[in-house]
């Protein structure tokens, strides 16, 4: 078979090679670079989008967290207040109860004292009457003379009163 010489430039091969190179370039561009660059770009857009979304979500979460934290602090404050109020009220009520009890106790004591005084008076009066009677009886027997009760009653009472006061 016929061969070309080893080192030569064949014009038509030369031209065809130039054309082939540009055709090849176009083919590679169309079938490799265009679709792949397209995909890469899409992926880039998607990644950017995801990052933006993530940032927005984080901001929202931060906002919510702050809100929750402040509401929890509020709740704690309120709880403390309620407890304090309850304690105060309880103290007031306890004080009231104690005061009432003291008053009642004082009342009871004074009443008891009044009763005692009255009883004492009553006892003294009874004793006075007894002593009066006895004195009249003794005096009657002593003087053998009937002492007129109505006449001397006043005298005796004065005497007893004086005795009572002296005792």
């Amino acid at each position, binding site marked *: *078979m*016929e*061969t*070309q*010489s*080893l*080192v*030569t*430039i*064949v*014009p*038509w*091969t*030369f*031209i*065809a*090679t*130039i054309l*082939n*190179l540009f*055709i*090849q*370039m*176009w*083919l*590679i*561009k169309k*079938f*490799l*670079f265009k*679709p*792949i*660059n*397209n*995909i*890469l770009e*899409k*992926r880039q857009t*998607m990644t950017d989008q995801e990052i933006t979304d993530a940032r927005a979500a984080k901001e929202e979460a931060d906002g919510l967290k702050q809100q929750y934290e402040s509401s929890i602090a509020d709740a704690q404050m309120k709880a403390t207040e309620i407890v304090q109020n309850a304690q105060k009220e309880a103290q007031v009520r306890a004080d009231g109860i104690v005061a009432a009890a003291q008053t009642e106790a004082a009342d009871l004591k004074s009443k008891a004292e009044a009763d005692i005084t009255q009883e004492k008076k009553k006892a003294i009066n009874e004793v006075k009457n007894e002593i009066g009677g006895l004195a009249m009886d003794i005096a009657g027997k002593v003087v053998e003379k009937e002492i007129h009760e109505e006449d001397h009653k006043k005298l005796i009472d004065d005497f007893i009163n004086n005795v009572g006061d002296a005792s």
Partner: protein
Amino acid sequence: MSDSFSIEGARIFARIHTGIPVLGDFLITETLVVQWIVMAVITFLCIFLTRHLSVTKISKRQAIAELLVDTANKFVRNNTGGGHKFDKLIPFVAALFATSVLSNLISLIGLRSPTADLSVEAAWAIVVFVMITKAKIKASGVLGYLKGFTTPIFIMTPFNILSEIATPVSMACRHFGNILSGLVIDGLIYWALGLASSALLGLIPGVVGRFLSNIPILEVGVPAITGVYFDWFSGCMQAFIFCMLTVMYIANAAEG
């Protein structure tokens, strides 16, 4: 086994008479046919790799395609000083590299490398030369470009013109020389090994020896090892160097 070694140019399958003076007949040579095969393979690969693309959960095929595109992008951008100024060059450089590397390596399956024909490298180098010149003129205008030849002094003009022309010539000849030398050395090695095994097995007496001496048994193995350098390394290296120079020359030219 032949006792003499010879290497020939690409075979001519058909000759189409055109009658155009300078260009001569259109020759359907081995170079052209294999070039078409190379183009078909590259195009098929591109289409195959970019089938069923998706944004997430990519297939291995897509990963390879993305890697290729990314490598091409980085190659051009890094060698032009970063930035997206020369992004238009990327498909051209990719086509050049793919064609070159596949043309060099196709000799491994027994076809004749199109790059073992100076016409091919000359064509590529001329295209690159035109692009360099275009970038230079774009950077400093036609007058500035012409004036550039007279720097630093007017006497330097012939040398400047020579160095300008030397660029495509050296690019073409470097690539061609490497591939052709690989072809020659591979041929020599096969030839020598054939002779050696024929001589070795011919030592066996009688019919057996005569029969066995026709089997070039030594040709199995050794060329695979030498081929690592002369085919694989040289082939990839030359394609890489050619593209590297293309990008660098154009980038330099554009800087003015």
